[in-house]
Every structure is written in C-alpha cells, then in structure tokens.
C-alpha cells in the first residue's frame, strides 16, 4: 500500500491546514498522480483539486508533488513517490482557497501586466501577415506556456514579491511578444519592464526551468529581455 499524504484545508471547518494520510492500492501500476487524486475523491468527495484535460495541456492541476511543483496528470508515481510515500500540497507562495486549490489572481494579474497580446497598429493585409519559418521559430519554446504557475510558484523572488515581480511565466510570455516579428510594441513593452522589480528581481535561481512541465526555459527568456533592455537603453 502506498502512503499518500495530502494537504487539507476547508476555511469553513478548519482553523488551520493539516496533512491527511491515506492508504492507496496502486495494484502495482505506474499511474499518474491525478489518477490517485481522482480515486481518493470517489472515496472522500470533500477532497478538492482542479483538473480538466488530464493530458498536460490545460494547466489546471499544478500541485506540489513530494516537494516539486508539477502537473498531477502527467507525473507518474514512479517519479513522484519517495520511500513509498507520496506527499501532495498546493503550489507554494499563493493563498490557499481550499485543499489543493490556490488563489491564482496575483499570478494572472502579472500575466495581464505584460500586455499579453500582439500589438501591431499598421493596417492588416487582406491575408495573413507574412512571417518566415526562421522568424516563427523564435516563438518556439515560448508560446507553449500553459499558465499552470508551476514555475512562478517555485520562484523565491515571486514568493517575496508576487505583486511586483512579474515572475517567470509572465516574463516568458513578455518575451514571446517581444520576439514576435509581427509585434510593433517593443519600445512600449520594454519601457514597462525597466523598473527594479518587474524583470530584475530574477536572480537566476532557475527553479522555473527545473519544474516547467512543458520543458520551457523562462530564465533564458529573461536573459533575452535583459539584453533587449540593455540594447535599447544604450
């Protein structure tokens, strides 16, 4: 039997959070952490977590699994269980609403701050705006972000200043638009990032790179933003 320990907190009932222990029979199969949660919820319907696509593209079920942020639906037990024990907590650093569900409004607010949409005020052509495959390739590794918040909630700088530091996810998206040859808002975008907090609270700890379930590299993108700021500032 697998020992599963899950963070529980219901604001209406509990004065403080606690860890609840479950025994789970995996029947020898290497299932996903989400399968475990789903099964436990059939036993205890009060257990609360988010989930949607169950295939790692919607970004709903980011949780802290045995100490590392990840998506429950694509993390197999073989990667998550240590000493026959699975520990599931909410993503750290943001307020907990209930059990494994966190309040992500600060995370989304940072995303909105970077103007996450294409800016191009030139009249659009009758067909698509042309872009070479090489220019399009600059967006690879950026546009795939699923906003699961695994990276930002693994970042100490984001823990300390979630209201001021944009965080790895938002910055990855900021660079996604800076790198897009169709976007003409570069100057504005850079001006909005040139304060001591938005970008420069990144100290290159690289937790974001380590946990990203999509294998993306926010630190690298942040480096590119710095270079662009440097180039535009001199």
């Amino acid at each position: 039997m697998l020992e599963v320990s899950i963070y529980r907190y219901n604001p209406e009932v509990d004065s403080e959070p606690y860890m609840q222990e479950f025994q789970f029979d995996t029947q020898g199969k290497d299932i996903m952490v989400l399968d475990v949660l789903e099964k436990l919820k059939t036993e205890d319907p009060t257990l609360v977590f988010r989930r949607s696509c169950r295939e790692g593209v919607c970004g709903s079920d980011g949780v802290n699994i045995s100490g590392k942020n990840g998506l429950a639906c694509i993390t197999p037990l073989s990667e998550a269980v240590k000493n026959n024990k699975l520990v599931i907590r909410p993503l750290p650093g943001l307020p907990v609403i209930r059990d494994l569900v966190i309040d992500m409004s600060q995370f989304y607010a940072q995303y909105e701050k970077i103007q996450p949409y294409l800016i191009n005020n030139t009249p659009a052509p009758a067909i698509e705006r042309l872009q070479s495959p090489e220019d399009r390739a600059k967006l690879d590794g950026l546009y795939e972000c699923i906003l699961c918040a695994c990276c930002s909630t693994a970042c100490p700088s984001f823990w300390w200043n979630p209201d001021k530091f944009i965080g790895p996810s938002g910055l990855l998206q900021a660079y996604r638009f800076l790198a897009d040859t169709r976007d003409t808002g570069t100057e504005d975008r850079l001006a909005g990032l040139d304060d001591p907090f938005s970008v420069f609270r990144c100290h290159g700890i690289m937790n974001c790179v380590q946990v990203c379930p999509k294998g993306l590299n926010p630190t690298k993108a942040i480096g590119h933003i710095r270079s662009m700021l440097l180039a535009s500032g001199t």
Partner: protein
Amino acid sequence: MVNSVTSLGRSGLSDWLVQRVSALVMTAYIFFMVGYFIINPSPSFEQWQALHGSLAMRIFSLLTILSIAAHAWIGMWCVLTDYITVRLIGPKATPIRMFLQLVMIALILFYVVWAIDILWGI
C-alpha cells in the same frame, strides 16, 4: 511598470548594470591584490606605501571602494524589499525598512568618507 516609494526612482536596468560593473571592478581589484602578494609575498612598509601612494593605485582603490558601496546598497536594498515588506510582516514594514535603509546609507557613507580619508592621507 512597478513604482516603489523606496526605489529612489532608479531603473532596474541601471541597478543591474551597476551590480555587474561594480562586481567586475571588485574582481579586478581582488585579482590585482592576489597577484601582487604572489609576486611579493611579504612587502615591506616602504613597498606597501609606495604602491598605495601612486595616483593610479589610489584611483583604483577608490573605484573599488565606491563599487563596494554601490554593490552593497543595491544588494541590501533588494534584500530589504524582499523580506521587510508589508505583505510579509504587516504595515510596520515600511517604517522599519526606511530606518534600516537610512542606517545602510549612513554606514556606507561613513565607510566611503573614511576610505577617502585613508587613501588621501597617505
């Protein structure tokens, strides 16, 4: 764009640049001094005074002192705005941080003035 009352209106880029440039100056100084001691493991008082009496060395030392001051100020400002924040310790954070920053400024100024006094007093 984040505006913070205590950021003293500096841009993140200039802070970041100052950190890097000052780090280079300090590294150069360390390399120079280590090199000096390798070549001359136990300098006499005269040798030591001659070294620091030259104008170039005095400027180099002063530059290093100023680099340490800038580096320390930006670094400590970051640390203070990470940990001594309203979000973490409540409304008293701002006055505490202000006080600590004033202490920092006073200390740094004191050290810089003292260093200048030493360097030009040779």
